[in-house]
């Protein structure tokens, strides 16, 4: 960490946020403090690295624009950032669905190094997750990938804790069904290809 940051490191989260509303240096410290968490969350949900960078940039620029109207309620600042990130990811998913509708082969052309390095099961899980409705994806990703509590997820998504539990339960069932069906499809393909190879 650079020496200029030491002045801000002693401040608690609330004071730092208040300073960041006016001071670019405090904003920089805030950015460095949360960049890794947000980047990790976005990259776990979004496969391609250029999309991850775009979304992360949009999250932090939205943070700057929204900071003047941010009111401290006692909830962690991280929850507010997760909410912005979730909104941006959902926007990206909608855009992606729209793009796939108009250009169905565009996804296959955009092969990313980040995506290639992933194992088959991870790719399958990510693909199945992206096929779920956004509200199930949000709940599942925050619970399983970020290890957040039901209460924190409810705060981030702005819903009741019961709703989060219901979304988790229903989302889990849907995801399992999708994973099993994609596994079966792959087995079918293998069964068809093996005899033809042997011939």
């Amino acid at each position, binding site marked *: 960490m650079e020496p200029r940051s030491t002045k801000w490191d002693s401040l608690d989260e609330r004071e730092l946020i208040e300073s960041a509303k006016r001071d*670019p240096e405090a*904003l920089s410290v805030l950015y460095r403090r949360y*960049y*890794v968490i947000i980047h990790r969350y976005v990259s776990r949900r979004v496969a391609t690295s250029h999309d991850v*960078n775009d979304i992360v940039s949009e999250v*932090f620029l939205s943070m*700057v*624009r929204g900071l*003047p109207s941010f009111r401290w309620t006692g909830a962690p600042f991280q929850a507010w950032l997760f909410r912005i990130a979730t909104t941006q990811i959902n926007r990206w998913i909608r855009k992606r669905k729209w793009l796939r509708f108009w250009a169905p082969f565009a996804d296959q052309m955009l092969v990313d190094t980040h995506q290639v390095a992933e194992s088959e099961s991870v790719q399958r899980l990510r693909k199945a997750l992206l096929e779920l409705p956004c509200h199930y994806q949000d709940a599942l990703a925050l619970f399983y990938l970020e290890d957040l509590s039901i209460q924190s997820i409810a705060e981030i998504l702005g819903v009741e804790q019961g709703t989060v539990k219901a979304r988790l339960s229903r989302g889990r069932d849907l995801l*399992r069904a999708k994973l099993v069906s994609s596994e079966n499809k792959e087995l079918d393909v293998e069964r068809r290809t093996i005899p033809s190879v042997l011939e």
Partner: protein
Amino acid sequence: MNDEQFQACWNELKQSSSGTPTINPFLEEEMKTELTTLGPRRRFWRRMLVTTACLLAVGVLSGVIANNIVVATPVEQVDGTHKEESETLLQFIIRHAHAHARQAHRHFMGF
């Protein structure tokens, strides 16, 4: 798929993106620029909004007041005599503004 396999899939996805990303210095600079330009931009629009609202309020209030003041205007009759007719100040102002506008149009356009 049982619970353990399901959890293992999630753990694998979690592990696949657990590396530490490098801070983007361009984004940091862009954020600082955004912050420094955000204040003056917001102040400008806030002032613009307040000024517009004030002007609108003054206009509406003046209209209401002018509509409640009655003035007597001498109107020339056919026989050349003058008779006083009453109208509201608002009607008086609109009538005069209209007459002046008509006169200016005739002066500049010729018809």
